[in-house]
């Protein structure tokens, strides 16, 4: 198994400590995303694995091989750079063939393998084109082809879709997923865009601005069960409320001043970590906008029933987002899919509405 394992890795730049004693395992053959805000150190991790930087402390292993001191040209790792770094003086064929040529592979084999790969990527009509004439999507495919022709153990992708418009990006994301599926190579995808990470990843890690890894898990785990408000807010819009935890026997409730008392589920938290589950402790509640029901009707049977006034409405075709003022000082975001051509219930500015959510859709957070 060729997992990529970083142990106690530290790195500082010009006196600033970017990474401190980082531990990360990237499981073999998976599409792994590393998500975080700009400057958090995710690119540094990528560069350390690629061999473009040396660690100050710690080790990097691929499977059983210690690659910590190996220079980048001896590692079985290839990179798709952020603006592709395609060699402008070489055409498409030569760019892709580069790594084979420097290894002294014979001409015939080069020709077969390169042409085959270019065909897979749909570039067979641009084989001898200059790379500067290609579109963004084509350049990216050339960069990918160039990197995977080596059949590396790990493929690093450094924010590869940053320069693309959103439609092309969606298309490329799907292509990347299919590619990884067919190659079964370990992909490490670094990005600051949660949508990209959630879409492509089998597993992901999320880093905060201090260079620490906050959470590792599947996209679903991270989105639905974040460990902190930072994670919750980073991967998608979230309503965060601060309150006091009240534990009575087996039940738990959170009291949010001026808003009310809300029953919560703490089964998962109990399994993870007892430390902060004490009575009277200040905690945070996270409710995702799509999990709140907004309606003018009065209903029963929900964990929360809040009255509010609609403050703003943003219609986006597939969905409508409402910002609702609740109580004196709270604003909640609510997200509703436009399921009907003509909505049966019309909600307008300054309307009085009710917001509801279920107990199981709320997450209690320590911080």
């Amino acid at each position: 198994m060729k997992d990529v394992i970083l142990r106690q890795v530290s790195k500082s730049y010009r006196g600033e400590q970017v990474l401190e004693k980082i531990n990360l395992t990237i499981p073999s053959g998976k599409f792994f995303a590393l998500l975080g805000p700009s400057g958090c150190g995710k690119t540094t991790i990528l560069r350390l694995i690629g061999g473009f930087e040396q660690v100050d402390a710690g080790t990097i292993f691929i499977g059983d091989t210690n690659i910590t001191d190996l220079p980048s040209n001896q590692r079985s790792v290839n990179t798709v750079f952020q603006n592709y770094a395609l060699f402008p003086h070489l055409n498409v064929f030569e760019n892709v063939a580069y790594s084979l040529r420097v290894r002294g592979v014979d001409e015939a084999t080069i020709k077969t393998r390169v042409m085959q790969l270019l065909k897979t990527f749909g570039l067979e009509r641009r084989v001898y084109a200059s790379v500067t004439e290609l579109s963004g999507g084509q350049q990216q495919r050339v960069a990918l082809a160039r990197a995977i022709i080596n059949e590396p153990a790990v493929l690093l992708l450094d924010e590869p879709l940053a320069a693309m418009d959103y439609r092309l990006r969606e298309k490329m994301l799907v292509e990347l997923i299919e590619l990884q599926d067919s190659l079964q190579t370990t992909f490490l995808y670094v990005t600051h865009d949660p949508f990209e990470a959630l879409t492509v990843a089998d597993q992901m890690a999320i880093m905060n601005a201090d260079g620490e890894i906050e959470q590792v898990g599947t996209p679903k785990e991270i989105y639905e069960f974040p460990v902190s408000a930072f994670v919750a807010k980073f991967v998608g819009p979230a309503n965060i409320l601060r309150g006091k935890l009240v534990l009575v026997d087996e039940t738990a409730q959170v009291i949010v001043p001026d808003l009310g008392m809300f029953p919560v589920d703490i089964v998962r938290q109990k399994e993870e970590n007892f430390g902060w589950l004490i009575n009277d402790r200040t905690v945070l509640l996270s409710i995702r906008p799509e999990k709140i029901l907004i309606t003018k009707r009065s209903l029963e049977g929900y964990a929360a029933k809040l009255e509010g006034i609609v403050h703003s409405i943003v219609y986006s075709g597939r969905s409508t987002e409402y910002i609702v003022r609740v109580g004196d000082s709270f604003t909640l975001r609510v997200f509703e899919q436009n399921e009907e051509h003509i909505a049966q219930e019309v909600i307008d500015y300054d309307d009085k509405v009710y917001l509801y959510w279920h107990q199981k859709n709320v997450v209690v957070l320590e911080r």
Partner: protein
Amino acid sequence: MNLLKKNVLKKIGDEAMPFALGIPAFLWQILFFYIPLLLVFILSFPTFSWEYFTPFFASEYVSVIVRTVLIALSTAFFCLCIAYPIVYLIVFKGGRFKHMFFLFLLLPFLTTFLLHIYAWMFVLERGGVINVLLQSVGLISEPLHLLNSSFAVIFVMVYCYLPFMILPLYSSLEKFDKRFFEASYDLGATWWQTLWRVLIPLSFPGIRSGFFLVLVPAFGEFAIPELVGGDKKMFVGSIITHYTMGAQTASLGAAFTLLTAFILLIVVVAVYGITVKIFKQ
């Protein structure tokens, strides 16, 4: 009606003014550059015959021309060999002191480097520093004849023309995106492979500029060969000067100038063509 006239005049003025401003440069160029060049051509053919060219087909002149071409090419070549590594080191390994290193590299050339020729004469001559040193250490028994030779000429020319190679190389290598190094290593290449497959091809325009910026003036050089070459008539430039400054021989001077300029053109085109073939640029 008056307003319309005013507007039209203003418009013409607006368009004419920049044009008028641009004229001096063009005029200057034509009057003081293109016409003189034309004059060289005209002076060579005062009687519409080749008469002023024929004396120069004698073997002594041919050998001068050949020698000049070879020495100019060698100078350019050695300048390249010396300058490329040092500029590479400054640009890629210089760090924060890059600019300082670069400026101090060029500093000697800010100080009337003609004088430095004299210092080299002092160093290279029979009683000079090098010979004294080598003799005292015992490596040679008799002083070497370093001065008054082609070696001395090339040596001093390389010294004097180095900045013309350094400047374009520096500007070319400075623009080089260091990520190409990373991409090349990432794909498994060694440093040496990266140098020849990536760096040199991509910095080639700079190399070519530098090479010609040295070759062309070196070809026309006359002071250095005269001072350290020992033979007053060894270079094309010396001969041109001799004939042009002499009375009654202006046409000969012009003819020889034209002839050698033509030969230089051929050499330049040949070198350019060869480099294009090698590097497909």
